[in-house]
C-alpha cells in the first residue's frame, strides 16, 4: 500500500470505523438531524424526478385549482397532496423546488464565504503586521453593516440597473454573491485566531527550520489543524444564509415570484392567510423551521464532539 494515497475502499473503511460514526450513533438527536438533512439534500437534488409538477411550467397550472386545501382537509384534491397556492400550483412541488433553491443558495453562498474568509483569515493570521491590521479593520467595517441591510441595498440597485427580466435570470447568483460577500469576516476572524494559536506551536517552527516555504506551511501544516472551527461555523452559516435568503425573498427582493423559494412562498401565502388558506404560508414555514433546526442541532453536536475530544477527535 502506497503511503501517498489512500484508496477509496480504505477511506470508506476508515470512515465506518471512525469516531464520527460512533458519536453520531450515540447521539440520537444528532443522528435524526443528520438523516433529516440528508433527506432534504437528496430531495433537492432529485427535485425534477420527485416533484409531481414543475412549478416553473406555467401551462401546467389551472387557475381553477387555486387555493385547494391539503388532502386530509375537507375539499382536498387527490392530485395535490398538500393543496395548491393562489395560482393553482401544487404546493408539494413548490416546496421541493423551494428546498432546492434554499439549499443551493445556502451551500453556494457559504462556499464563497469559506473561500474568501479562509484565504483572508489565513493571510492575516500568518503574515501578521500590516496585512493583519488592514484586513481586520476591513472585517470590522463589514461587520458594522447589517448583512441584511447590505443585501437589500445591493439587490435593489442590481434589480433597478438590470431590469426585472434579466434580473430574474441572474437572481440566484446575485443572491449568492451578496450573501457570500457580506459574511466573510465570520470566517476570517475565527480562522485568524486559530492560525495565530497554531503558529505558536513548535511544529510550525520545525517546518520553518526544515526550509519549507510560506505557502506549504500555511496550507499543509496550519490549515488542516484549524479544520474543526471551520466545520462548525460552516454548518451554522448554512442555516444563517438560508434564513437570510428566505427573509429577502419574503421582503420581495430575493428570488423572483415565479421561482419557488421557501421565503417567497411564505410571502405569497401571507396574502391568503386571512382568507383561510393557511397552508400556503404555513407549510413552507414549517419546512424551513425543520431544515434550520436540523442544521443547527447538527452544528451544536459537531462543536461539542470536537471540543471534548480534542486530542482524539474524529480523524477527518
Amino acid at each position, binding site marked *: 500500500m502506497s*503511503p501517498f494515497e489512500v484508496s477509496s475502499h480504505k477511506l470508506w473503511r476508515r470512515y465506518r470505523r471512525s469516531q464520527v460514526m460512533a458519536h453520531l450513533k450515540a447521539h440520537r438527536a444528532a443522528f435524526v438531524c443528520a438523516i433529516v438533512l440528508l433527506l432534504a439534500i437528496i430531495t433537492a437534488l432529485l427535485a425534477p424526478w420527485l416533484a409531481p409538477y414543475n412549478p416553473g411550467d406555467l401551462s401546467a397550472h389551472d387557475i381553477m385549482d387555486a387555493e385547494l386545501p391539503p388532502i386530509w382537509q375537507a375539499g382536498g384534491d387527490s392530485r395535490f397532496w398538500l393543496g395548491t397556492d393562489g395560482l393553482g400550483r401544487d404546493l408539494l412541488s413548490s416546496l421541493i423546488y423551494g428546498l432546492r433553491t434554499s439549499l443551493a443558495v445556502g451551500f453556494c453562498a457559504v462556499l464563497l464565504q469559506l473561500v474568501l474568509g479562509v484565504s483572508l483569515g489565513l493571510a492575516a493570521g500568518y503574515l501578521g503586521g500590516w496585512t493583519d491590521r488592514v484586513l481586520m479593520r476591513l472585517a470590522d467595517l463589514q461587520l458594522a453593516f447589517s448583512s441584511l441591510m447590505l443585501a437589500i441595498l445591493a439587490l435593489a440597485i442590481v434589480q433597478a440597473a438590470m431590469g426585472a427580466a434579466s434580473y430574474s435570470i441572474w437572481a440566484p447568483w446575485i443572491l449568492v454573491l451578496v450573501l457570500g460577500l457580506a459574511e466573510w469576516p465570520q470566517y476570517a476572524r475565527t480562522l485568524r485566531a486559530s492560525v495565530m494559536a497554531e503558529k505558536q506551536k513548535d511544529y510550525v517552527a520545525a517546518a520553518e527550520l526544515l526550509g519549507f516555504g510560506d505557502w506549504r506551511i500555511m496550507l499543509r501544516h496550519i490549515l488542516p489543524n484549524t479544520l474543526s472551527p471551520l466545520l462548525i461555523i460552516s454548518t451554522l452559516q448554512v442555516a444563517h444564509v438560508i434564513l437570510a435568503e428566505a427573509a429577502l425573498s419574503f421582503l420581495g427582493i430575493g428570488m423572483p415570484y415565479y421561482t419557488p423559494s421557501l421565503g417567497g412562498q411564505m410571502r405569497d401565502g401571507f396574502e391568503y392567510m386571512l382568507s383561510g388558506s393557511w397552508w400556503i404560508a404555513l407549510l413552507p414555514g414549517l419546512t424551513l423551521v425543520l431544515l434550520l433546526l436540523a442544521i443547527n442541532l447538527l452544528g451544536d453536536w459537531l462543536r461539542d464532539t470536537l471540543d471534548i475530544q480534542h486530542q482524539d477527535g474524529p480523524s477527518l
Partner: protein
Amino acid sequence: MTQPLLQLEQVSKSFYTRPTAPYELFRWRRPARLSAVEQLDLTVYRGETLCVVGESGCGKSTMARLVMGLLHPDEGQINYAGQRIDHLKRHDRLAYRRRMQMIFQDPYTALNPRLTVLHCLLEPLLYHQPQLTEQEALEQVFQQLLAVGIDPALGQRFPHQLSSGQRQRLNIARALSVKPEFIVADEPLSALDVSIQAQILNLLQDTANQQNLTFLFFTHNLAVVEHIADRVAVMYEGRLCELTSSRNLFKHPRHPYTQALLEAMPQLTTSPQQGAKLMGDVPSRLQRPLGCSLQDRCPYANERCRHQVPTLFSHTDGGQTACHALQEGRIKP
C-alpha cells in the same frame, strides 16, 4: 575542534510586557522590559558538544531560538561558519536552514498532529529532493526510522498514537533527515520519563559521534551535562557565569553560582559542604538591579558587585568566569 562553527557576539534580546487585563489599558504605564539574554559571548567549535545549563527562565530557550533564527537579536551578531547570519532575510537564510536543526522540548507540540510518521519524514525528503522516486524515498525513510529505533510498522500512526519516547525519536529523525551538521537541542529530555531519558540521550550521543555533529545542548539537568558535554556554559539570569570544560566544572567549580548549582545536585553519598550556599530567591526579571545579577544571593558580594556587571575573564586552565570576587582573589580559585 579548533574551528569555530557558531559565534555569538554581544547578543542581547529583550521582551516587553503587554497589558494583560482590560483595566491596564487605562493606566498609564510604560511597558516593562524583560531582558531574556544579555550581552552573550559564546563560541561553539566544530565537532564539540557544548552544554548550556541554567535554571528555568534563565534565557536558555531564547538563546536556542536566537541561534536558530526563530528570533532576531536586538543587539550583537551571530556568525555561522564565518558568515553573519542574524540579519539575513528569510530567503537568504534558507542556505543555512538545512545545515542546522533544532530538537524541541515538547515532542508532542513539535509534531504536526495531522501528519503520520511516514509523512512527517517524507515531506522534508521530497521537498528538498523532488527527483526521488517513491520507492527510494520510502527506503530512506525506513532507514531513518530504524536509525532512531522506531519500528517502521508504526509508519501509519499519528503523533497522538505514539509514546512520548517515540515522539522524541521521531523529532530527532526529522531533524536528521535534512543531514545537518549542527544540532540545537532545547531541553530535549525534560518532557520525558526518566526511564526514557537515558535512551534518548544515548541515541543523541551515538548519532553525534557517527555523523560528527556539533551539538548545542540546553538543559537544567547536571547529570546529563556530565554524561555528554565537552564544554559547559553556566547561565544565570540571561548572562554567562562560567564557561569551562566539563571535567573542570565538576572537579572544581569556580563561580559561586556554579558551586551552588552543583551543591544542589542530589547525591547518594553525603559529603561536607564546600562551596557557596545561596540565600534568597531569584530576583524579578522585570526590575533588574545594577551590577551582578547574583548580588543579593551571593555571600561574597561587595560594593563593586552592586554597581558593575562582571564580564568573562580567562583562567590559566582555559576556563572563563564572570565574577568580581574571583578576579580580585576574594575567593580562592
